[in-house]
Structure formats: C-alpha cells, structure tokens
C-alpha cells in the first residue's frame, strides 16, 4: 500500500486509541499556565485546538486562531528533551554497611513505552544530537538509552513558523525528514499520515483511513513551504567554528556582558544543551546517599569552578562559551552545529537577546 493515508479530523481520536491499544502511554501538547507543554494525552480535546503562539525576542503569548487545527503553533518552551535527558534523576545510590564498608546500587527502573504526538523537525534534529552524545560514546548512558529506546515518535510537519523560528537557516525544518515512526501533515479537514517504520505502519493499518488525494498532498506541501517562507532570521555562512574561535577577543562580547542576565533560560529551553551537575544527597541518618544528576547551565559561575577558581568569572566569558560552543566548537564535537533553529533561546531570553543578530556582528569582520 501507499505509505500515505488520510485520516479525517473527526477520526483523529483513533490514533490515540490505537497507540494505547498497542501498549503505549501517549504524550502530546496541551495548554497549561498560558503555555504549550507536553504531557499525558488521552483525548483529542486536550490538544491546543484553535490555539496559536505569538513569539518575539523575550515574548511568548498564546492566542486564539481562526482554525480548528491542533498544531497551528510553533514551539513551546520545552518539548521532548525532558523525556529522555531528565531534568533531575538519580544515577546510583550508596549505602554504608555495618562493618564500615560501602555498597553501590544501580537505580535504573523499567520504563513504559511512550508514544509522543506532535514532535517538530527541530526537536527531532536535537534528539538525534543527544542520541550521538549520550549513546554513541565509549560510555553509553544507561538512563538516557533506556528512555530513548522506549519512544515511539509521531512527528508533525510545521505549517506555521513563529517569528523567532529559523530552522530553514540550520537546515533542520520545517519539514520533519527523519528519526520518527509516523509523521502528520495537518490540513483543515484532517491529517495525512505517513509511516516511516514498520511499527508506524502497523499503527496506520489498524486505523480507518482513506486514500490521499493529489489536492491534499498539494495543500500539505504548500503549508510547509508557507512555514519556510515565514522565516526571516538567517545565520552567517558556515562553518562557524573558526569564525567564532578567532573572534574570542571581539569587543562585542562586552556588550553581551552588559545585556545578558546570566539567568540560564536559554540553556534550559535549548533542546541540545546537555550540561549536568552531579550531586550527592544523603539520608538523615547518614546511611544512604543518592547520586543525583540535574541540568546545569554554563551561565552559572559554578559551572567552571575548580578548587577556588572560577574559570569563566565574567558574564562575557560565559556568554562566549555558550555561543561559541553551540554554533562553533560543536561542529568539531558532533559534526554539525549545536543549533537546530527552534528559536527558543530568543523567545525565552528575558532581555530578548537574539543569537542570530549577535552572530551576525561577531562573524562580520571575518566575512569575505
């Protein structure tokens, strides 16, 4: 059969039902506290139907839209990163034994299979980077690997970009191209479903779907093209590693020192940031301790602390570290930029610092 099938809007609930029947806990986007977040999903009505987001540097607002669409918005502050790289989790525990010894225990527990509906192209690209970081080194991460392997991903092609989106500049969107089981193209009347894996196809085959018409395919393509054309932010011509590393003493870093609050919002919302702190938490009787990993930000002075010295003591050092790593040295580490163009760092920066604008200044003197 053709891998593309059409699912009328009134039958969209059958996708959730089918995933549940296949044993998955279903997670999807929904409105909470004036923002779109991902959480457990049982009914289509929980989705952000007729909601759109207005984003700008330092600004995020949800608004009612004219349409009945579920995915007529761009990005929330978080999407799927917290489901694989958890914000706070125990890595292992230690216990003092009566004879003075110490025993160590793994804390890995079984995870349930999870199906996530509504994964965007930028977040799939970020997930692929995290897969590389957490699973393909000499020491694969057991916690990340287990959660990652339990995921069934249902992507959605973006048909609307926020003003802060620039995935066309990084080459990661708005069309979801790989790394998912199923992908949705949302039209006014329903969804084009396209399976990319055998288990994705199994789900589609269980549902009552229709053949896709040429007109529907054209509408989907036009929607993706429209989202691409809505984007106006660009990046300097890459690769950027050499440009940024050689701009290490650029005077522009000082202006960032003056504007940046060092709050770490950009690193918290960035889908590729992976820095961590490992801390030990002891029980009241001192007999047990949990070794906990939590998200860390390179904007925290403690991030670069060594025996009484803070290596990046100035905000300008920390901003330089973040931007140079994300857009520059990341290339050497991962074979690509660490930015997927989601624009979250621009939206959620309380003073509205726009990385694309900063990069334009920092890389300018090196442009031919």
């Amino acid at each position, binding site marked *: 059969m053709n891998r593309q099938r059409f699912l009328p809007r009134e039958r969209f609930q059958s996708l959730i039902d089918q995933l549940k029947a296949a044993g998955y806990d279903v997670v999807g986007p929904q409105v909470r506290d004036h923002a779109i977040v991902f959480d457990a999903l049982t009914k289509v009505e929980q989705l952000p139907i007729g909601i759109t987001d207005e984003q700008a540097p330092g600004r995020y607002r949800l608004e009612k839209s004219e349409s009945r669409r579920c995915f007529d918005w761009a990005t929330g502050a978080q999407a799927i990163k917290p489901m694989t790289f958890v914000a706070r989790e125990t*890595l*292992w525990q*230690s216990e*003092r034994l009566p004879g*003075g*010894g*110490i*025993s*160590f225990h*793994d804390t*890995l527990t079984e995870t349930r299979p999870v199906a996530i509906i509504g994964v965007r192209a930028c977040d799939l690209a970020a997930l692929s980077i995290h897969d590389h*970081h957490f699973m393909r*080194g*000499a*020491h*694969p*991460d*057991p916690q990340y*690997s*287990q959660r990652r392997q339990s995921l069934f991903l249902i992507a959605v092609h973006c048909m609307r970009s926020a003003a802060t989106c620039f995935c066309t500049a990084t080459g990661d969107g708005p069309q979801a191209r790989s790394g998912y089981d199923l992908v949705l193209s949302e039209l006014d009347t329903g969804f084009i479903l396209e399976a990319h894996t055998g288990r994705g196809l199994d789900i589609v085959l269980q549902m009552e779907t229709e053949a896709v018409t040429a007109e529907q395919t054209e509408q989907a393509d036009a929607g993706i093209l429209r989202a691409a054309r809505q984007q106006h932010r660009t990046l300097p011509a890459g690769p950027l*590693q050499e440009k940024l*590393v*050689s701009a*290490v*003493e650029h005077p522009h870093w000082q202006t960032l020192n003056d504007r940046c609050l060092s709050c770490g919002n950009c690193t918290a919302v960035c889908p590729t940031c*992976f*820095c*961590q*702190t*490992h*801390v*030990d*938490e*002891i029980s009241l009787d*001192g007999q047990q*301790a949990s*070794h906990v*990993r939590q998200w*860390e930000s*390179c904007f925290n002075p403690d*991030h*670069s*602390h*060594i*025996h*009484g010295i803070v*290596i*990046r*003591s*100035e905000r*300008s*050092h920390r901003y*330089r*570290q973040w931007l140079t*790593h994300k857009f*520059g*040295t*990341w290339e*050497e*580490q991962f074979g690509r930029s660490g930015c997927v163009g989601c624009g979250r760092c621009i939206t959620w920066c309380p003073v509205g610092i726009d990385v694309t604008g900063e990069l334009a200044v920092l890389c300018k003197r090196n442009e031919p």
Partner: protein
Amino acid sequence: MNNPFMPHEAEVIARHEETADLFSIQLRLTDPVIQSQYRFAPGQFNMLYLPGMGEVPVSIVSDPDDIHIIDHTIRKVGSVTNNLGRLQVGDRLGLRGPYGRGWPVVEAEGTDLVIVTGGLGCAPSVSLIDYVLRCQARYGHVHIIQGVKHSNDFIWHARYDLWRQYPNVEVWLTADAGDALWPWHIGPVTQFFDQLDIDPQRTSVMMCGPEGMMKAVVQDMRQRAVPDKRIWFSMERNVQCAVGSCGRCQLGAKFVCKDGPVFNYDELAPYWGHKGA
C-alpha cells in the same frame, strides 16, 4: 548496561601527611577481581567518592606497573578533599577510573625530555617520571624542573634525591620564595631554560601546574623552536562525570576528561591564553 557513573568500593591502605594542607593516601579496590583488572597510564586520573559529599577528580601518583595499589596526593581545598584528608587506614570510599588520555610516553620515545612542574603540579608527573626512568633506554636526556610557591611547599625530597642519581637526569628546583635553609634556586621555572642544552627538534616538553606558569613555559619553548606538537601539558577543568557527558570540563572543542587531560599545544592553540576559555 554497565553504569559508567557508579564507583567501586576502595580501602585506605596507608596515609601520609605531606604538609599542613597536603596528604597522600594509598588505596586498593576491595573487590580483588576489579583491582586485578585495574590498569592506568601515567597522567590519567580517578574519581574519588565520599558518601554524602560527592566526587572529585584526582591524578594518580603511583607507579603504573604496581598493580596492587593506587596512590593519590591531594590538597585540601573543598569539602570532599578535606574529608578525604580525615580518612584513616582501613576506611572505605568510592573509586572509579582511570580516565582520560595520559602523557605521550610512546610518542616521546627517542627524544630528550623536559618535564616542568609547578606546585602540586608535580603529582600528575610523578608516575610519568617513574615510568620514564624505568624505561630510560627509550629516552634521551631527562631534565626535571620543579617550581613551588614557597620552599615549605616542596614535598617528596627523597624522590627528587633519588631521581638526581640517575645518569642523564638533571633535577632543577626553585621556589618563588624560600626560607634561609632552602638550598636550591629562587625565581620562576623558566630561569633554567638558557642552561638547558636541548636540541629543539628532538625534545619533548611535558608540564603540569598553574596555567600562568604553563603559559610562560609554552611561550619560551616555542621561541626555542620546540615543535607545537611536542609541547605537552596536563589541564584542569571542572569534572563531574569523567566520561565526556556532563559538559563541565569543556575547553574549546575538547572535553578535558576524555580528550585530555594531557594535550599538546597544537591541539589547544586557538584557545590558549584567553581568559575564561
């Protein structure tokens, strides 16, 4: 799947107070199978753990060929190192390692060696010197230059006296400030470089210590035309995971914990000497 973050239990076999804030502990992994499989290369480090306190990265001082014990020399600076300093013989702690890329003992074969250390920077280089002197036929002349802030900080007198007795080994000692009985030099480690009779094209420089000192040595050795790829140093950054995951030790594109801690100048040149890099 093996948990790369989880330590093994180790036991304190011996301890020694070096100075008021420096101590050495000798450790052995309590599981005989794990201890027998434990091997390290000069310049690598371990993560030491105390329950409820956390972990610290510490370079390994002992002889890499001694498969029964693991020595660390540690300065008391924070809560973990201060409490490691309180451990007594028989006490238990956590240990995982070894981690990182150590000294280029194979690449440096056939060359003269200039080993420069500052302060407790000598700790990561002790196992290097022990190794080099045991395989002395593979190396040329060995210059050992150790600088300390104050003569009171100088430890391991016996070790340096022993090294001095080897043929083709010269030991140079200096302190920024010394008391009346300090028999060696006063001033920076670079003061000896004019007296070193080295052929830059067949010399390897290895150093460890404060970045300011290493910066001065790198500049001097590059001026003497020692190739960038033969100027090596051991770097320090914040290390939480030691396996390249936590991102805390990044220095430019490098993860100090897995790509280093030993680097040559060529590898770090773009980031070298920039404050906050």
